[in-house]
């Protein structure tokens, strides 16, 4: 290690310590006091102003002024630390609460498919007819698929925390066309209309810098969700435009909508709204979607109404790449 840098570290540490700060603060006052005593006792007071303020008193005044100034500065610094510590405690408490809630929800999400799996295995070993055994096997596989999907989504979420994402130009309209095409082949899409609107006039879209595969997951999740929470005959629409700074993608549906009380929670990990209780899915889709959008420097918002006219609109804003 470089001895000079150790010395500097020591110096910085010394200046930051509380004792040093106190000593530095009080030093001018003490010096002023000493100067006063010295002047009064050993020298004849030398008047410096007409109303007889001698040089000792002047030093005392100057010293106390400096002490006040330094003290106020150091105190401010310290108290800022106290406030920050309070905030940290709040954040820590909130994180702790989130973690507990997450585990409760996870427990719930695992319990159901496991119960199904257990029952299916019992049926499989006790059923005598081949058809019953086959049905039990199907049920077991179904429960297994649910667990696998949950695990896969959990892993995605964990990986997004620490893996670097690709940063390449992505053509959002082309990506949306691909994703819409893929979503149209889902069974639920057969009796619902899915429209894609791309505002191409007057300029072509600037690209977005990011990970094409992750972004495709964003739009796929939003469109798949829209299909999940709409009924036969409802419409789903994806539309995109650029507003000079960002590329805006909206995914809208005329489905049942989300209750206002639930709206702020739908992006939470494993949160399930009342409407979502019966539907398939890991409960992590929107959390994952938002995480990806944020990693791209964008934002994800939602508006929803349950009264007439009802429906939901998700808005993704992704910063346009600079030329």
């Amino acid at each position, binding site marked *: 290690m470089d001895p000079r840098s150790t010395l500097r570290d020591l110096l910085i540490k010394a200046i930051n310590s509380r004792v040093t700060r106190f000593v530095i603060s009080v030093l001018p006052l003490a010096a002023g006091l000493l100067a006063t005593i010295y002047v009064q006792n050993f020298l004849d007071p030398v008047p410096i102003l007409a109303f007889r303020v001698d040089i000792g008193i002047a030093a005392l005044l100057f010293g106390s002024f400096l002490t006040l100034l330094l003290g106020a500065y150091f105190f401010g610094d310290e108290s800022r630390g106290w406030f920050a510590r309070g905030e940290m405690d709040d954040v820590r408490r909130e994180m702790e609460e989130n973690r507990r809630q997450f585990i409760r929800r996870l427990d719930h999400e695992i319990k159901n498919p496991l119960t199904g799996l257990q029952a299916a295995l019992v049926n499989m070993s006790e059923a005598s007819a081949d058809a019953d055994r086959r049905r039990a096997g199907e049920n077991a596989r179904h429960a297994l698929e649910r667990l*696998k999907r949950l695990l*896969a989504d959990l892993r995605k979420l964990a990986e997004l925390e620490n*893996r670097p994402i690709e940063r390449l130009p992505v053509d959002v309209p082309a990506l949306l066309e*691909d994703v819409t095409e*893929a979503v149209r082949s889902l069974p639920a899409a057969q009796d619902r209309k899915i429209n894609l609107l791309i505002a191409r006039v007057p300029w072509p879209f600037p690209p977005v810098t990011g990970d094409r*595969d992750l972004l*495709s*997951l964003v739009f796929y999740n939003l469109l798949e969700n829209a299909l999940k929470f709409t009924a036969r005959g409802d419409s789903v629409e994806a539309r995109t435009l650029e507003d000079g700074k960002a590329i805006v993608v909206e995914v809208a549906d005329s489905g049942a909508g989300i209750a206002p009380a639930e709206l702020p929670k739908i992006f939470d990990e494993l949160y399930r709204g009342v409407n979502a209780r019966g539907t398939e899915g890991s409960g992590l889709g929107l959390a994952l979607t938002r995480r990806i959008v944020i990693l791209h420097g964008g934002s994800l918002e939602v508006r929803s109404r349950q009264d007439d006219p009802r429906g939901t609109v998700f808005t993704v804003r992704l910063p346009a790449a600079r030329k």
Partner: protein
Amino acid sequence: MPKDDRPLILLADDDPSIADTLAPFLERAGFHVLTVSDGAAALDKIRSRRPALVILDVLMPRMDGREALRRIRRENLWLPAILLTQVGESSERALALEEGADDYLNKPFDPHELLARIRAVLRRARPGERSLSASWTLSALDLVLDRKARRASLKGDPLDLTPKAFAVLEYLMTHPDECVSRERLLEAVWGWEYPAGTRTVDTRMAELRRALNDDPESPRYIETVPAEGYRFAAPVKGE
């Protein structure tokens, strides 16, 4: 007793629920299966029994699968190896390749998928020879792949490939003449399932073909197998 001529597979996994269920499954598929529960034991058995293939779990007590594989290769044992990774991170998979695994599967997997991997790896295996998966440089016709530097060149000119496209090419070249499904590529290269995944693969493949100047109608390198996937058709040499 007649001599057992079924291929011998060594399965190393410390979790009995996996070893106990996979072994009978593989036996039914026509293999002779030997199970051990840690890397050191796997190494001993490889030396004494010379299995045709080894399946190694990554996380094991005493010696993990990766270290075991490294030692196997250091002893110049080139038997095919399949690594069962537990962590889905892409870095993990890159490492698996670096240590010379011929293929790898993410847990949890469908046992049929494992069987398909075993058969493909055995078909490709040239016993005693260094496998393509353990080679740092791969070449096919005018194409050269430098796996350590993550660079590819065509007739000496460097190719401008995205990291994903490079990884796809790498997987195809280490599994030449094998029909690789889009799902398999997604799992091996992306490590994630993508809902719109097959399109994702096709996009990268189009990028690769453009870069390789490969005509999909009469390809020199990458063939499309209709309704199945892709195949690297050119002969590959490893160094």
